[in-house]
């Protein structure tokens, strides 16, 4: 059953068409990847799902709900969480506080309850903390729990951002280049985590990624974009050997080298 459905989505910036008549659907429980050269419009698709941009045409539906009727901050409440390409963490807060912000959509206490710290709030805070600790255990962040973000290395920030997205307990997780800038070991970890996120937590994953090695290992289906339009869709192997994809990446002359491209970083 499809969880997220884009239908004929088009977005223009001034005269430039960033995304052109794109339709795709992500099924519940699968890991789906968007690939394509830089500037193909992958992150733009994410930003439309997050409602930072509004498409000029087309519809985006999540579990039957029309996302275009919602404002950016309401998307998280529907059960969609995301990470960012150039990490957007809350720099002057600790890892723990960052993850607790992820729990924001689960709060129930009112303003007076929070101001006077009375009523439900204490129990609720314990509950939030418990949920966050589960994520911390899952991603092995215990050592960093009380550290400020500002002092953390890049690889750890990447994981913290994933953790913050998981803390919202989403149904759909959008990962914008989860492995960019990570070392080989960190990329390996990321691969197992994505696998576990799908298997153990039952979260559907939609990701943008350049590392075809990672994509072919974790993804069920891949969609290749170029210049904002769909080039090919299918299993990782199918997409990688698709002539149009190879052409978009390497130019026409490289079509004969298809076999070598398999499983390598494109």
């Amino acid at each position: 059953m499809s969880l997220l459905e884009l239908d004929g989505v088009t977005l223009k910036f001034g005269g430039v068409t960033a995304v052109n008549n794109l339709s795709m659907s992500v099924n519940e429980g699968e890991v789906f990847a968007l690939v394509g050269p830089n500037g193909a419009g992958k992150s733009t698709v994410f930003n439309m799902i997050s409602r930072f941009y509004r498409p000029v045409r087309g519809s985006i539906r999540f579990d039957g709900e029309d996302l275009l009727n919602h404002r950016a901050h309401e998307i998280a409440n529907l059960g969609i969480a995301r990470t960012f390409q150039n990490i957007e963490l809350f720099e002057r807060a600790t890892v723990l506080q960052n993850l607790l912000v992820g729990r924001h959509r689960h709060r129930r206490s009112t303003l007076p309850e929070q101001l006077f710290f009375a009523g439900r709030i204490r129990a609720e805070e314990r509950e939030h903390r418990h949920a966050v600790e589960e994520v911390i255990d899952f991603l092995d962040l215990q050592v960093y729990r009380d550290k400020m973000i500002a002092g953390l290395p890049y690889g750890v920030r990447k994981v913290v951002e994933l953790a913050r997205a998981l803390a919202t307990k989403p149904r759909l997780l959008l990962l914008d280049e989860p492995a960019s800038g990570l070392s080989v070991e960190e990329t390996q970890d990321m691969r197992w985590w994505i696998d576990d996120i799908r298997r153990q937590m039952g979260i559907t994953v939609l990701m943008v990624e350049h590392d075809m090695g990672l994509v072919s290992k974790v993804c069920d289906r891949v969609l290749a974009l170029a210049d904002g339009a769909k080039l090919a869709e299918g299993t990782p192997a199918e997409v990688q050997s698709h002539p149009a994809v190879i052409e978009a990446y390497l130019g026409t002359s490289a079509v004969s080298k298809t076999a070598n491209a398999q499983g390598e970083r494109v």
Partner: protein
Amino acid sequence: MRFHFKTSYDQDIRLFPDWWNFSLYVALLLLMLVLPWLIDGFYLGEVTNVLIWAVAGLGLMLLTGQTGQVSLGHSAFMALGCYSCVNFMELGLPFLAAFLLAGIVTGIIGAIIAIPALKLHGVYLAIFTLALAILADDLIVILEPWTGGVNGYFAPVIEIFGIEINRWAAPETWYYLALGTSIFVALLYRNLLRSPLGRAFAAVRDSEISAQAMGVDVARTKTLAFGLSCAFAGLGGALMGLFAGAFNNETFNFLIAIQLLMMIIIGGLGFIHGAFLGAIVIAFLPQFLSILTDNLGSASIPGLETGVFGMILIAFILFEPMGLYGRWLKIRTWLELFPFARRDMFRRQKTYLKTERLR
């Protein structure tokens, strides 16, 4: 070195993380309670002044330190708090009710005024609020029937449960009023910090875009931050005007708002302690300077206070942007880790500036 092992989530949720910390604050509270017996009336008045500035400072701190929104216009809300408190008292409300109601009214009006300012960032917000402060000055003159205009108001007699709060006859009564208010406001502030709204404030401060992605309604959060901040500033303003005895539009000049901002920066942006430390500097600097010029045998130099204040602030921004409390935290960490602290531990992270026009 003191180790701090956590065994329960409650340790991070409670007001005080451990017994040591708790007993420190109890000791401080006891000291503050017996202070009237330790120092004379003049200095007690000065301490009262410190506490009043701290209340207003906490208000601005919530907005600037926690939510990252600069305001150069909090004098307007201090004025609003003061005049509404006096007007409620004239309507026959008892002081305490009028005082709290003034805070609430100021908060609501502050939140409403914030709505058109929601889209403004950084310098634009600073200029917007500065314009508000200047407008407030003129509005006070225009709204003469409620404010007394340039002639101003004489503070009415304040009574709480039959006890008269009088600055001259019984300075300790005023001191306890200011102390009570500052503890009340600091407690609310601390509660906010440990609850979802406080975290949403920090999220909006550090990255609006990812705050939105986490489900934080940025507009609503900023409005709430403005409202609460103005409410606290209103309480501080009411105390300030009533403590001065007489007040007019000049009492809440826009320079007060600028001083308030400077004060919380000297104290340490984003820390409750910072508001109090900054208030100590701002309240005692004039005393200190007059003692200094007296001892040097020179006549008083007009404008010296603001000049020195400006120099202190420049020094802080250049050498210790975290303020007095930030410096104390560094010293404390250094002592706790001795001899393992490294210089680089506190190195500031520098970012290269990119244009805000592409926000």
